[in-house]
């Protein structure tokens, strides 16, 4: 029983990180129908910014986080402007290939700049784990879950109640109709990239603290798993990305705990195949039929 709860807590820890990253995939997909494969590398950039802010500049965690969010948001907007916007009316496959190109560009630029060797991320929340009977709950886990939860609630509030959020929903449903309402579609897309990338940066920092390191290719695995999470929850559906993130985190953690560590990734990715075969629209996928 203790082990079950322990794995559950671990699952929530990684799951909330996957959920944060999955949100970026799903928001961008919802609005421009593009799987932004560079999203995983944006989280890598966010992690590096966090790393340098914590080590070279000795900033407190909050400021490091903020710096990473802001710079990643700017990076996300810049990538959209330079790489995707010129292809807005091109076939979708062109933008997808471009996204892969951007991903490799970021990975190799960072390798060139900072070397391929992993650097050690400082242990930010290096305090004693909280012991509840036989359970060990590291403070990092609690902070990760709370911070991710706060980001998700914040996102939900933005989308539901602000003008920007309404514009995002409008554009994702029908960009032409949104234009007719006076919504600036390009700007809305840009903001979506910014928010998605900022959330990705939070995910990247939490991920790198959890695994104690940053390296240029670190975005790939969590990026792919978060992509699976987004598809599992229903790509383009925001609550779906959160749900998918937690499910993937749970599956990974329980596989590691009960089966074997080596199987965890295989099982996570086989979920992608199963979803694509049996329910391509995902758990919370849209079924609203349009009336003509």
């Amino acid at each position, binding site marked *: 029983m203790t082990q079950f709860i322990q794995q559950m807590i671990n699952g929530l820890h990684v799951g909330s990180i996957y959920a944060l990253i999955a949100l970026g995939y799903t928001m961008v997909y919802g609005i421009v129908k593009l799987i932004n494969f560079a999203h995983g590398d944006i989280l890598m950039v966010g992690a590096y910014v966090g790393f340098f802010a914590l080590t070279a500049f000795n900033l407190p965690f909050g400021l490091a986080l903020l710096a990473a969010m802001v710079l990643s948001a700017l990076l996300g907007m810049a990538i959209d402007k330079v790489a995707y916007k010129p292809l807005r009316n091109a076939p979708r496959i062109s933008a997808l290939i471009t996204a892969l190109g951007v991903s490799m560009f970021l990975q190799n630029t960072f390798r060139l700049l900072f070397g391929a060797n992993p650097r050690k991320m400082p242990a930010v929340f290096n305090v004693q784990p909280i012991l509840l009977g036989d359970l060990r709950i590291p403070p990092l886990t609690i902070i990760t879950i709370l911070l991710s939860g706060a980001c998700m609630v914040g996102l939900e509030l933005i989308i539901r109640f602000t003008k920007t959020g309404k514009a995002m929903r409008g554009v994702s449903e029908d960009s032409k109709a949104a234009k007719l309402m006076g919504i*600036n579609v390009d700007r809305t897309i840009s903001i979506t990239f910014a928010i998605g990338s900022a959330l990705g940066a939070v995910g990247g920092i939490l991920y790198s603290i959890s695994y104690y390191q940053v390296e240029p290719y670190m975005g790939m695995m969590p990026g792919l798993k978060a992509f699976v999470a987004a598809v599992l929850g229903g790509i383009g559906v925001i609550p779906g990305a959160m749900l998918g993130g937690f499910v993937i985190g749970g599956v990974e953690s329980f596989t590691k705990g009960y089966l074997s560590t080596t199987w965890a990734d295989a099982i996570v990715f086989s979920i992608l195949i199963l979803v694509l075969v049996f329910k391509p629209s995902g758990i919370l996928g849209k079924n*609203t039929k349009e009336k003509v």
Partner: protein
Amino acid sequence: MLKVEGLHVYYGAIHALKDISFEVREKEIVTLIGANGAGKTTTLHAVSGLLSPKAGSIRLDGHDLMKTPAEKIVGLGLAQVPEGRRVFARMSVHENLMMGAYLRKDKAAVEADLERMYGKFPRLRERSKQLAGTMSGGEQQMLAIARALMSKPKLLLMDEPSMGLAPILVDEIFKIIQEINEMGTTVLLVEQNAHKALAIAHRAYVLETGKVLMEGDAKTLLDDERVKHAYLG
């Protein structure tokens, strides 16, 4: 109010609009009629900025609409009820109406207009919390019209508002268009239902394969033998 001159639009190699000119004056209902593919919707899209014409001029009260991006045009007092309604299916009725007022900053007046819309379309009030995608075609059309009116337009563009509706609803829609016009909004109406459109319009233009074939007083066109033969059956 709206003056379109020498409009040319191409879809790739297809010359969709060939030298279209027309005018809408204040307080009028003007209708563009014509068969499928005559260029009616293309003309509306050019006016509302959803596509860019190759040549010509479109002016609204002196503003050059050809140089205005689509999202700025609604701010100049021009709203469109698009073909196929295009309500935001996953938003509630209330949210859809508020999307219509997206650019407006006068909160109190927006609330008052919202109340007016609910007064005019009681069905929308009953369903204000319902998702727009779950409503019937007629209700969605009402919503699309109300949403456009929420921007407080001087000129309302309507693209095939009667399409796909039951006959009784078609009559209601045309009645609503007339009422909107009587309340002071100028209307540019594109319709395949030429008979009903001509019956409520002041003036009309007949389009055929991208050209203006005839223009004139709506009542005169309604009696015109050629129009009768070609469009009124």
